[in-house]
């Protein structure tokens, strides 16, 4: 893996090339989707649509895209709200106490990721139904569990780069334990926490299986709607509109978060 420091030492031309390749790699597959989202008719072998329009958007709106996006937003926020504080607490232990054993840290955190999330959720699915929790609560709890490795890992990295002495120094200067945490330690790892929250949000925002199966169809979020529309033929414009609408909020958030992180 290329770390930021080796990236910076590359010649400028090399960096530019990498940036272009990455941009093409990421954006090229999106191009047809963007075109489809504004096409009413586009048949092979036409290079561009023969009729432009908003049919796809209208169809997506009729299928309930707006309320689905609102549900996705709520779900993403709820997952982030549960998984971020837990992740920070876990990250503190991992980053400060186990910081000298990075291999242990990585293994502990990555083990849950090796287990496919759907296998985990299938077992817990039956348990959740037995518990009789309201379905949306079960979904948030399960997705927060799936998001925990990301939030804990990100925070652990933040803590491991911050000296535990920081808190001790604040205490020596007369701060209470709570003040030291809230005014000194947390601000010092603000960047990793923002990223952790963002990752947790994305887990909630993009999930299909847990939302549908554990949610019992009560939570028709954007991915659920998108998945069902994409399973049919001839829905390309609608699917493209839904895909764009589902993609834009996370992309915006990631951009904003990276700005916030860069800011001094």
């Amino acid at each position: 893996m290329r770390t930021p420091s080796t990236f910076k030492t590359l010649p400028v031309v090399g960096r530019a090339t990498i940036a272009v390749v990455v941009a093409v790699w990421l954006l090229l597959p999106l191009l047809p989707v963007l075109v489809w989202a504004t096409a009413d008719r586009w048949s092979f072998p036409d290079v561009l649509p023969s009729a432009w329009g908003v049919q796809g958007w209208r169809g997506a709106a009729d299928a309930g895209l707006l309320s689905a996006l609102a549900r996705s937003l709520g779900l993403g926020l709820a997952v982030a709200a549960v998984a971020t504080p837990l992740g920070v607490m876990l990250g503190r232990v991992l980053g400060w106490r186990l910081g000298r054993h990075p291999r242990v840290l990585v293994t502990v955190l990555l083990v849950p990721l090796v287990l496919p999330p759907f296998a985990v959720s299938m077992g817990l699915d039956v348990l959740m139904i037995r518990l009789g929790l309201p379905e949306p609560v079960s979904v948030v709890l399960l997705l927060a569990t799936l998001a925990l490795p990301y939030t804990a890992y990100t925070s652990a990295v933040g803590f491991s780069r911050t000296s535990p002495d920081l808190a001790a120094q604040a205490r020596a200067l007369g701060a209470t334990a709570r003040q030291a945490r809230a005014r000194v330690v947390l601000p010092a790892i603000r960047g990793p926490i923002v990223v952790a929250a963002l990752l947790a949000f994305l887990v909630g925002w993009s999930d299909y299986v847990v939302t549908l199966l554990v949610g019992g169809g009560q939570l028709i979020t954007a991915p659920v709607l998108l998945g069902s529309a994409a399973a049919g033929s001839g829905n390309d414009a609608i699917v493209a509109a839904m895909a764009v609408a589902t993609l834009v909020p996370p992309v915006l958030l990631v951009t904003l978060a990276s700005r916030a992180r860069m800011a001094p």
Partner: protein
Amino acid sequence: MTSRARSIRATSRPALPALAVTLALVASACSGPSPDESPRAADRPWDEVVAEAQGQTVDLWMFGGDEAGNAYVDDVLTPAAAELGVTLRRVPVADTKDAMNRVLSENAAGSTDGAVDLVWVNGDNFATGQEAGAWWCDWADDLPNLQYVADDDPLVAEDFGVPVDGCEAPWHKAQFTFAYDAARVTDPPTTVAGLLDWAEQNPGRFTYPAPPDFTGSVFVRQALYALSGGADEVPTSYSDEAFDDLTPALLDRLSELAPSLWRGGTTYPRDQQALDQLFADGQVDFTMTYGPATLTDLVADGTFPSTTTVLSVEDGTVGNASFLGIPASSPDQAGAAVVANLALSPEQQAAKADPAVWGQFTVLDVGLLDAADAARFANLPDSPVVPPYEELSRNAQPELASSWVNPLDEAWRREVLGSP
């Protein structure tokens, strides 16, 4: 480091189809009760069911990729259910297996307060639920509108060889259909075996979805009938003996054909949607579907060429019916039964059969209807693309038992996939 965490997340998410299969395996492995334990509906007057249904909300889980089907349920069926005091709520899924996974989990948890009240289902998914004792049974025989369904209709009595046994109510019929572009195919074949010959004579212009995709799987069964000397030669129920006897000819023929398929048979479309895309793009000249109703729309909106024509197959194609099933774990069974009965009414069946609405073939026997209701069907406009059911279902063949499906798909994967 965060970019690493993100990339791990991105790569650890498997593709949906693989997921669905695994989920089905996991789910079926943990399901408990046997079919004999299927809960059965009590015998009671229909009025009581209707009264109990008042105010219930029925969650109907159904494949959401068919826009016309979604529109029919939202705009026609749901308002009619509301008039009967039942709120109908459509839950769109990418695959009916998603609904079955939820039902099986509820079943395994012993829940009677489940989230699924009604499922648009047939074939393998019905059989899976039946094996697990996850369906509510006997209710479907009591629906008043069942009087318009012919008693001796084999498509309605069995669902892919599994007796329906009052555990699901018929909804509509489907006929496996080949379509071709008449502008490019000037000498269309007239039999399924002829279609295979045509593919050989026109290299690269024909392909089929790779089993275990639903449509690809049907195609292989259709080819099995054609290469075994007709549907009568293939026993409906599975036996190792019949399998060993009949499949070598099928597998040899399909392997032999593979180099003449699209891209030399080195790859196959993933599903019907991918095949439809190839057909829409003019890369192949044939497509196939178990839902011919969608062809009307696909031609009307320009996805398919206006010269799309349904292939007339002399030896006939397989047909089936699809159903509405009520899970044992549904808390709104009375409401679900009322909706299933409503969906079976002549008004709803005729509305749904209109190609402008959904174009699904009715399960009713028009001969059993009174004059006014029969007229609803007589007055239906013809689809410019899809011939009427009587024509499409000429020489129709029954589906094989669902226990045939897995061995055939597996043999295809072993012998045909990657054979060139």
